Structure formats: C-alpha cells, structure tokens
C-alpha cells in the first residue's frame, strides 16, 4: 500500500526560482527512501511540501489517503501528527530538558490548555521513557538539551518524532552536522525504525555513500527534477546525472570510505 503519493508537485519561490518542477513518485509502507542531490537541488523544499511547512505551487500530496493540499488549518494539524520530522539542526528547545522536548511530540494530540501548561498523561510519559531508553538517552533524561552533544540532540529529535506515533518520518539532512561516529549511530537508528517499527522514512542526504548503504530506494534530484528513481545500485553515470560536475569528487569519496 502506498503511504505517500506525490503528483505533479511544483514549487516556485516568487516568480523566478523553480525549486521543484513536476515531481511524481509514490512511497510504499515501511520503505526507506533516500533523496539525494547537491545543495540547492530542492530536497528540503520537497520534504516541507509534504507536511505543508511550505505550500506547493501546484500538484498534489496524498498522505495516508488524504490530500494534504486541501486541508484547512485544523485538519492539517491533525494530519501532521502522523508525520514526524527530523532536522539538520535538531530544532529542540534548548532551554528545556530531554523529557520535555520528547513530550513535545504529543502536542498535536493535546487540548490548548493541556498543551500550554505541559500536562501529559502517565501513558504518554511511560511511552516517552521507553523511547528514550531505546535510543540510549536514559542518563540524559533530566538534562537540559543545551548540555547534549550533537548526536544526543539528534536522538532527542528522533524520540520527539517517534512519540507522535507517526506513519512517516521526514528527515532533512539528519547527519549533516554530525561527526562520522554519531552519523552512523543516527543512521542505524533510522534504519531500525524503518525495519523494526515499519515506519516509512524519507531521508534527505547529501552524502551518496551513506544513501547507498542504508536506503531501499534512491530518488535523485537535480535542479528540482527527479533524474533517478530506483534501487541503490547506481552507476557512475547515474551519479553524474544527479550531481552534475561535482560527481567526480563524490565518487572518489565513496571509494575512499569503502576501503576503510
């Protein structure tokens, strides 16, 4: 079954920049899809059009059978509960503790008053601790997020998304600000989430090697157009198509990392 269908998706910023141009694809339940392309290709715009952080100019996004583009404010909020989002810069509220940030993932389910005062049910708290434990953050539960390392912050971001009970995770360059070790931990967690929990993942990545290693399927974007959509066994020419003139460096990069 398709969790997500994107039809004729087009996004223009102003009248000049055509960030996305007539994209068509669908994503099956539990699939781990990596979107690759050089910076400025339109990867972030694509993810944000799916949960309507950005409104598309034309086209349709159908998530769990519902056309996202036709929803009013309230229905949109309800639909967003089913879509978790992971950010390059983690986007935590740094002054709050890990547990508070994780519980933020439940706000979509809360009444105005309960959310404003931050009142959560025991069941929600139990679930939060369980997810925190799964991600290996138990010792940090009551630490303020500005005291965490980058990798730990990103795990808090993942926990916040998981407690939403999502069908789909949108990850916008989740490892772009992390060192190789932390990157591996995060990518392993995302892969696990997809395989074991059956949650569909759409992950923007800048690094081809990581994408090829983890994804079930690759979507390559160049200048707002899909230039590759298929299994993660790309030829050098196909990588060249996605990355244009930068491809040379990136292929050498992959070679280097595979050896080590």
């Amino acid at each position: 079954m398709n969790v997500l269908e994107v039809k004729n998706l087009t996004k223009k910023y102003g009248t000049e920049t055509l960030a996305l141009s007539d994209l068509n694809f669908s994503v099956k339940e539990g699939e781990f899809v990596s979107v690759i392309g050089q910076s400025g290709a339109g990867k972030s715009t694509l993810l944000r059009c799916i949960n309507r952080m950005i409104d598309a100019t034309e086209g349709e996004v159908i998530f769990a059978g519902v056309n996202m583009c036709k929803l009013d404010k309230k229905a949109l909020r309800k639909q967003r509960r089913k879509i978790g989002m992971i950010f390059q810069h983690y986007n935590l509220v740094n002054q709050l503790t890990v547990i508070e940030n994780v519980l933020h993932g439940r706000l979509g389910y809360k009444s105005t008053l309960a959310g404003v005062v931050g009142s959560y049910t025991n069941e929600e708290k139990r679930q939060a601790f369980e997810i925190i434990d799964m991600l290996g953050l138990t010792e940090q539960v009551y630490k303020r997020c500005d005291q965490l390392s980058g990798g730990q912050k990103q795990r808090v971001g993942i926990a916040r998304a998981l407690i939403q009970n999502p069908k789909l995770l949108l990850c916008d360059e989740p490892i772009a600000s992390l060192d190789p070790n932390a990157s591996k931990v995060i990518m392993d967690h995302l892969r696990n989430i997809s395989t074991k929990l059956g949650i569909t993942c759409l992950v923007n990545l800048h690094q081809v090697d990581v994408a090829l290693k983890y994804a079930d399927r690759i979507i390559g974007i160049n200048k707002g157009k899909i230039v590759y959509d298929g299994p993660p066994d790309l030829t050098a020419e196909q990588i060249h198509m996605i990355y244009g003139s930068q491809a040379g460096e990136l292929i050498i990069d992959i070679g280097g990392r595979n050896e080590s």
Partner: protein
Amino acid sequence: MRVEALIKRRRNNLIFFAVLLAATLVSIIITEFEVTKAFTSIPRAIGWAVKSFYPNANSLEKIPKILVKLRETVLLSIASTTVAAIFAAFLALFGSKTTQINSFLAAVSRGIASIFRNIPVAAWALILLLSFGQSSLTGYFALFFATWGFLTRAFMETIDEVGSEGVEALKAVGASYFHIIFQAVIPSSLPQMISWVLFMVETNIRSSTLVGILTGTGIGFIFNLYYKSFQYNAASLVVVFIIISVLVIEYISNYVRRVIL
C-alpha cells in the same frame, strides 16, 4: 578579479574619508565652532570642577532629601520598564516573523515599534509635557513609550534568533499557536528577554535624570535645583549618588544575567 575588488574597496575608503573630512570642515565653518578655543578651555573646565564641583561637609545634610528623590527615580524607571516590557512582549509576538499571525498585523506592529523607538526620550518628555504638565506621570510615560518601542524591537529579534527552530519543529508535530508560544517561544527567549529588560532599567535610570530635569521630578529636578541656585557641592553629591545607583543596578543585573543565562 580579487585585486580589482581590493583596489575598488581602497578607493571607496578614501572617498569615504574625504567626504567625512569635508563634512567636518563645513560644519565647523557653519557653526563658527572655534576648535582651538574649545580645546584650550578643557583644562579650565577641569580646574573649575576641582575647585567647586565636589561634595563638602555642608552638602552632606542634603543626603536624606537626595535619597528620597533617588528612590522616586529608580522606582519610576523600574515601573515604566516592566510595564513597557509586558506591552512589548505582545507587540513582539505579532511582529516577529516566527510568531506573526498575519503579515498585515506584523507590518503594523513593526511600524509602531519603529516610530516609538526612534523618538528620543527627551522628545517624548517634551511632547507629553503639553498634556500632563510637570509631573512624574510625564516622566513615566516618556520612559514607557521609548522603552516600549525599543523592547519590542529587541524582543522580536530575540524570538526570531533563538525561537524559530523550536517553533518550526512544534508546527511540524501539529501543535497549535498557543502550544508553540508557551512550549517553544517563551522557554527559549525568556532569559534573553529578561536580560534586555535589565539593560533597559539601567538605561532608564540614566535617562530619567535628564527627563527629571525636563519634567521637574525625581533626581533630575533636585540636581537642576541645586545647580541653578549655585549650590555646586550639593549638585555634585547628586551626581555621585546617580553614579552609585547605576553601578549598583548594573551589578545586580549582571548577577541576575549570570544566573539565568
């Protein structure tokens, strides 16, 4: 390419200094400002201050009177700043890119903030003198309006700077507007906002001296009174107290900043 850019920048710098020099010369000529006289009179001014502008034993009797006025001024600054901060917080929520409700309201609140901020406190005092006359109410509102404008701008920038990432994340989980304000915007921007409020309290104690001269209230009034009646020793004592109170407030706010940030 690079070299050309460098040469162009150097030429621009040269032009800038030439214009600056010309402007200085023209203004000196227009205002008939006598440069040599100005500089030679500095030692005379210092000499005068040493001879007559210092607190003496007699002036110490004035301390209780000065303290009463000082308290009035400090309380006035704190009251006007805190109330202005509350109003500024609301206006900033409407005006910030991160938390705006719609772009029309945002433009309106940015406009209000900008106008209020760009009218100096002294001008506010003079304008308000017309409606409230010489009373502490005039001083209060003068400080209030200028502070409101300044803090709105400072709060808006704080929210956009430290709050926007958390706000984006909470929007994505389906949180409502009020959830976002209370769970992301306030926790992330409050420490810096408090820091701005403390800064404004300090600033307002300084400006309320000037405002007091204009409106005939507080420490400014008593300074003006002693100064105009040639009681320079007492007037200098007032200055000493102003300096002490500003230093104390600065110390307190630095302490609070260390604790909250």
